[in-house]
């Protein structure tokens, strides 16, 4: 058996005899299982609830009686963001974003009823998910188990003893690395096994799951190397422990909180009130639907009349009100898209800034990659909002087209007693409306989104390993 092997085995035996270490490890595994189970059942509950609501909303829409199409534009529909299977592992920002949206004409509503506003203050302490356990708790356990692997040998003087026995510094460090690596594996494996077990269709999501697995493997490996670095550098175990606790606090707790503050201050977001007022202002400049003499609308009317070769709207083969509604929706939606795009761009810039600061904190990198691969990051939320808007626009324009084609202009402007009846179109029109179906990104796109995070972690690991080889050379040289 090689010296490296022996050292690793010896270290593991030492840990196994340390009752506190074993208890801590068992507790962590239990915590992981609790996190996997609770996260999974929470995610399933959410998925079922949202699916049920989605079905109810779609059924309600289709069950509407004969109606004027414009009534349906305002009746609107509710859509819910379905959660991908990987959200059970890392729900990301799901609790912080609204997950239900009311879609109607001329308005872009906010996504509402996120968990964060429906929970107690505890929600701000973090959420018990497998991702949380691996990102936050696991490194701390590794620190507790590993801070003394080299510092302890130095402190007890056994380091020189081992070297006198002909063990090289490299063998020693590799042995300790292997031992702590095995512990990291024990720490990380339950989460990963649970992860695979709860994802119902692992086949289609194999790529992002592999990305997540690789990411966490790199992350824990990085901690193992960092721990060995500190332990090899420190003269006493206590120094190594305090240094590692400080590193952990800064990297895991502090920087992930400070980075968003910096990003938020650097890239301001426009609030809803200012956005709404600005949209209304732009809309007035584009064309004031309340003003019969508005130049834009006059030009639009002229172009319609020209296209059909008539002189009065009453002579058009289609309902001018429907055409006008379509034009109005086109204008407002264009503005919505522009403002939403600006807000998304600002938020993306903020997140980029946080990612850049993530170069300083591997926890930010792993969090970003984990959420990106699970499609629970801001990009995923944005995808939902953009698809929702696309759907809303198509739905509203479809209804407006029905008004243009199926309701006559004369009926539409009539106000006599029977007019209401004549304005309505048949209920089966609603049944032919396509349902909202969230198009999830492809597995390869999700995996690709994890690449920046993986490269940052890989870089960290490379630098840390390089440093470790340096510290290895100095082992035992200092007193």
């Amino acid at each position, binding site marked *: 058996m090689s010296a490296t092997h022996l050292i690793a085995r010896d270290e593991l035996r030492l840990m196994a005899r340390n009752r506190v270490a074993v208890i801590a490890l068992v507790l962590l595994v239990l915590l992981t299982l609790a996190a996997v189970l609770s996260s999974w059942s929470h995610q399933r509950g959410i998925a079922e609830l949202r699916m049920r609501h989605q079905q109810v909303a779609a059924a309600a829409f289709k069950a509407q009686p004969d109606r004027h199409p414009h009534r349906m534009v305002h009746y609107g529909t509710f859509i819910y963001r379905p959660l991908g299977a990987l959200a059970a592992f890392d729900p990301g920002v799901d609790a912080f974003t609204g997950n239900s949206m009311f879609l109607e004409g001329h308005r872009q509503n906010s996504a509402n009823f*996120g968990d964060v506003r429906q929970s107690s203050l505890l929600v701000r302490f973090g959420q018990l998910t497998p991702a949380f356990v691996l990102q936050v708790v696991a490194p701390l356990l590794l620190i507790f188990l590993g801070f003394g692997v080299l510092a302890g040998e130095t402190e007890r003087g056994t380091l020189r003893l081992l070297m006198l026995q002909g063990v090289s510094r490299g063998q020693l460090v590799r042995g300790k690395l292997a031992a702590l690596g095995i512990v990291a594996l024990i720490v990380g494996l339950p989460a990963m096994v649970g992860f695979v077990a709860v994802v119902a269709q692992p086949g289609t999501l194999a790529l992002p799951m592999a990305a997540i697995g690789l990411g966490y493997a790199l992350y824990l490996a990085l901690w193992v190397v960092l721990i060995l670095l500190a332990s090899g550098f420190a003269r006493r175990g206590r120094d190594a422990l305090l240094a590692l606790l400080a590193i952990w606090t800064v990297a895991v707790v502090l920087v992930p909180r400070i980075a968003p503050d910096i990003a938020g201050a650097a890239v301001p977001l426009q609030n809803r009130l200012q956005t709404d007022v600005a949209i209304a202002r732009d809309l007035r400049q584009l064309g004031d639907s309340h003003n019969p003499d508005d130049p834009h609308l006059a030009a639009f009317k002229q172009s319609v009349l020209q296209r059909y070769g008539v002189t009065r709207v009453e002579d058009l083969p289609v309902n001018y009100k429907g055409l006008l509604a379509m034009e109005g929706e086109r204008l407002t939606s264009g503005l919505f898209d522009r403002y939403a795009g600006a807000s998304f761009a600002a938020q993306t810039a903020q997140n980029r800034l946080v990612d850049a600061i993530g170069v300083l904190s591997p926890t930010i990198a792993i969090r970003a990659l984990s959420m990106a691969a699970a499609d629970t990051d801001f990009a995923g939320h944005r995808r939902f909002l953009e698809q929702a808007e696309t759907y809303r626009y198509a739905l509203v324009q479809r209804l407006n087209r029905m008004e243009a084609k199926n309701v006559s202009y004369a009926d539409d402007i009539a106000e006599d007693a029977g007019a209401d009846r004549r304005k309505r179109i048949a209920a089966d029109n609603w049944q032919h409306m396509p349902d909202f179906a969230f198009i999830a990104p492809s597995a390869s796109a999700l995996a690709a989104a994890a690449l920046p995070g993986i490269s940052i972690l890989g870089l960290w690991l490379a630098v840390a390993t390089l440093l470790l080889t340096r510290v290895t050379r100095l082992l035992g040289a200092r007193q």
Partner: protein
Amino acid sequence: MTLWMHELRLLLRARLSVVALILMAILTAAAVTAGMVEISRQRTAIAAIPAAQSEDIAAVADYVDRTKDAGSAGYYSFHPTWDAPSPLAFAALGMRDVSPYILRVRALGLEAQIYDGDIFNPELALPGRFDFAFVLVFLAPLFVVALFHDLTSGEREAGRLRMLDALPRGGAKLLRRRMLLRIALLWAALAVPFLVAAVASGVGGAAIFAVLAVILAYLLFWTALAALVARLRWSSVANAATLAACWLVLVLVLPTLAHVAINRAVPIGQGAEIALAQREMVNRAWDIPRETTMRRFYAGHPEWADSAPLGSAFHYKWYFAFHQLGDESVATKVRAYRSGLERRDAAARMLGWVLPSVGVQALLTRLADTDVRAQLAYQDRVRAFHARLRNFYYGYLFRDRPFGRVDFGRAPIFAARMNTAGGSNEAADRP
């Protein structure tokens, strides 16, 4: 030189303790600064309401003035409400980053409006804010661990303990002196930056005193825990690891477990169900005789029952009436939803009696008025304001009074809880 000065010199000669104390003070200063920047940003946003609002309302008034139709005025006018931050809000931002502090409402159905959120970046909100409450609840205990873990064990390991114990003013008295000194210095590192910021923000004396007491109590809890661990007579390393593990469990693991437990124990029907039900109710009005709607409305609101009967043409009073009926139809659901939120909040508060981390967070956000209760109170104020709005527009609608340009200035103005910048609604004063 007094014994205290001796202890201070001893403490300041140790690099670890000096670095820890300075770092604690720097982090606290950074956190209160970040909090003040965020609050001033929120104040600026609130102060910017009148200008934007006056522009918006002026455009509505231009249009409505042509027809003098009160219904159009009510339909198109958004009225701003805002939740001005309390002076102490900088110390504990609480829910203010995820709950809106500005919300515009119309006199239409409120249940479709009151749950709207403002625009925020969820990825920035996810880890929580870097504010004074975070530094105190999450970081301060780690500094206690750094300064206290080797108080006795360090002397034992250095071989000084027996000699110190044998001195008349050594032993337990010495330990007490050292603990008090460290508590006092840590307290000062937290309290001084806070105090400066609190005075600059105009926080009242009682609130400042309460926060200072909370800081002390929380530090005392952690030092007591450190003292308890020290009684096991383990090594400094074991003490540090044990205390850090306690921190992990008390500050991170138990709150997250409790969060899952509370949300399980107190299920609340998703708020989305309210919006869904209200919208069904509102839209059903188009399919039933309008008189039925009006009859039901007048039954609940006899003060408007003497209004003229509806003609065949569209009249906004019918529209507003079914919107209000829609709100009223979901009142039970709303109450249940709200009481669910309150029960979840109360459960977390109860937990605060057992878990100091949660207790301190709850206390600070309560003092700062940035907690769930404050959000619900803001909703209450929005509801009250909305009721006044309805009453205002109904006075024109149900009496068929024309609504001219000057009437926009007569609309009720949201009464902010506190007198802050942006508290006046200039738009409403425009002719």
